[in-house]
C-alpha cells in the first residue's frame, strides 16, 4: 500500500486533524482542499487552514471482519463515518470499545494511534482514530 513519504506528506492532517474553513460560506472541510466545492471561484483567497477539534458523533459504523492485510493484526475492527462538530465528516476507526456498545449518534473524540506497519521495514504509521466519550450534561 502507501509508502512512507506518502504518509508523511499528509501528516499534519493525519496527526492533528488539520482541515480548512471556507470563509466565503463558513463550511469546514477535511482534509484540506484548495477550493471550496460549494463556492468554487468565490472561495479563492478565502480558504483558511484550521485545526478541527476532533469531536463528533458516529454517523454510521461497521465492524470489519476481513480487513486489509496491513491492518489484520487488529481484526475485527470498527470503522465509522464520524460527523465532526464543525460539520465535516471523516472516515476513521473507533477503538477502546465493542461494536455492540455503539449506536448511530454515539459521541466520539479523535486520538493519535498507530494505523499500520509497513512491511518488512517496520515503519509505523500514525494517524487519528476515535474513542467514544461519555455524554456530558447538556
Amino acid at each position, binding site marked *: *500500500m*502507501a509508502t512512507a513519504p*506518502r*504518509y508523511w506528506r*499528509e501528516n499534519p492532517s493525519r496527526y492533528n486533524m488539520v482541515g480548512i474553513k471556507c470563509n466565503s460560506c463558513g463550511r469546514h472541510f477535511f*482534509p484540506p482542499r484548495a477550493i471550496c*466545492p460549494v463556492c468554487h471561484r468565490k472561495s479563492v483567497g478565502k480558504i483558511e487552514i484550521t485545526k478541527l477539534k476532533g469531536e463528533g458523533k458516529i*454517523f*454510521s*459504523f*461497521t*465492524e*470489519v*471482519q*476481513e*480487513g*486489509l*492485510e496491513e*491492518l489484520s493484526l487488529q481484526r475485527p*475492527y470498527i*470503522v*465509522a*463515518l464520524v460527523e465532526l462538530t464543525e460539520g465535516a*465528516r*471523516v*472516515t*476513521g*476507526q473507533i477503538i477502546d470499545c465493542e*461494536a455492540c456498545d455503539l449506536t*448511530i449518534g454515539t459521541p466520539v473524540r479523535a486520538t493519535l494511534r498507530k*494505523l*499500520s506497519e509497513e512491511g518488512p521495514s517496520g515503519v509505523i*504509521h500514525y*494517524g487519528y482514530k476515535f474513542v467514544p466519550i461519555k455524554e456530558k450534561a447538556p
Partner: protein
Amino acid sequence: MRRVAIIGVGDTEFGELWDQSFRDMGIQAGLAAVADANISSEQIDALYVGNMSAGRFIEQEHIGALIADYTGLARDHIPATRIEAAGASGGLALRQGFMAVASGLHDIVVVGGAEKMTDVSDVESSVIQSSAADQEWETILGATFPALHALIARRHMHEFGTTREQMADVAVKNHKHGSLNPKAQFQREITRETVLGSPLVSSPLRVFDCAPSSDGAAAVVLCPLDMAKKFTEIPIEIIGSGQASDTLSLHDRKDVCSMAATKAAAKRAFEMANITTKDVDVAEVHDNFTISEILAIEDLGFFKKGEGGKATEAGLTGLQGEIAVNTSGGLKARGDPIGATGLAQAVEIVAQLRGKADKRQVKDASVGLAHNVGGTGGTAVVHLFRRA
C-alpha cells in the same frame, strides 16, 4: 447527433475461468459480437475497452492495443482505447462508443469490457477493488470496499427501517434469476437463511451480500441506426446515455443513502430519450452489494427513497414484478468481472429486447435500462435501450 443502434452482442461465461487468459476472454466475447452483427472485421472503425485494473490483476497495461491485436485488428491500425472508471469502466466504454458513432466520427464501433480477477488471491483482489475508494482518506484508515457499503447499509436501515431480511431478498432474487442464466457464475437458488447464515464480512453485510470476484468479458457492436437493418433484423437503439460524477469519498456526500451520481446520470439519460421511468420494462442495475441494488432502484426512480427494501421484499423487482431488475442474475449471481460488467448489462438488455432471454424473458419487454457504478458512487452511468 446520429441515432445509434446495437447490432451485435457477445459474452463469455462469468466465473473462475482458470483455463482462460485475459486475452482469450476478450477474443471470445469480441468475435462473438462481431459474428452476431454479421460484419467482417475490416468494417470495424474503432474499438473501446472497459477495464479497471489489468495492471494489478495481471500486470498488463495497454489493454486497447492488446485486444485490438489479438482480435486480429492490428493490421488495420484502428484506434483502440481503454476506459477506466473502476466498476463503471464498462458502462463508460459503452458511452464512449455511443458518442463516437453519434458524432459521426465512426460508423462501426466495437465496445468490449474484460477483467481477469482470479489470477490473484482473494485478499489481493479485495485490495485492488478497494482502490476504487479514496486511498488516502478511506482505505488507509481501514475502510475496505465492503466496509464502505456496510456504512451505507447501516445508515439506510437507520433512516428508512430497511431490514436485514430485505437486503437478503435482493440476493435471493438475483440468484433465482442467475439460476435461469446459463452464463451466470452462480446458477443455484439460495434462501434468506443462506444469506443470513453466511459469515459476516463487514457488519451488517455478509458473504452473500457481496458480488463475487469473477473472470469474464462482454462486447457489443454499434453502428448508426439508419445502417443497422443491413446487419440485423432487430436493432436495439441506444435512446439515452447519461454519465455523472460525485465526490470520491463516501464521507464527503451529504446523503449517503442515495447516489447523487446515479440520479444525475439517470436524469440525463431519460431527458435524452424523452421517456420516464414508467416506460422501462427491464433494468440491469449495479448490485455489487445487496444494499446497492436497493439504493439503485430508488435513485433511478422505480421506487420512492426508502421504499426499495420493501419493494424487493414484496417481489416487485422479480421477473413478473412491476419492474424486472437484474434478470441476468446481476453482479451478485451473474458475476462481476469489473470492466466487463457494464457491457454484460447491455448484452442482457439486448437479449431481453430481442425476446431471446429464454426462461428469464420479461414478457413484451421493449425498453431497457442499464446502470453501472464506479466506487461508492463517484461515477455512475445510465443507458436506455429500445427495440427499434
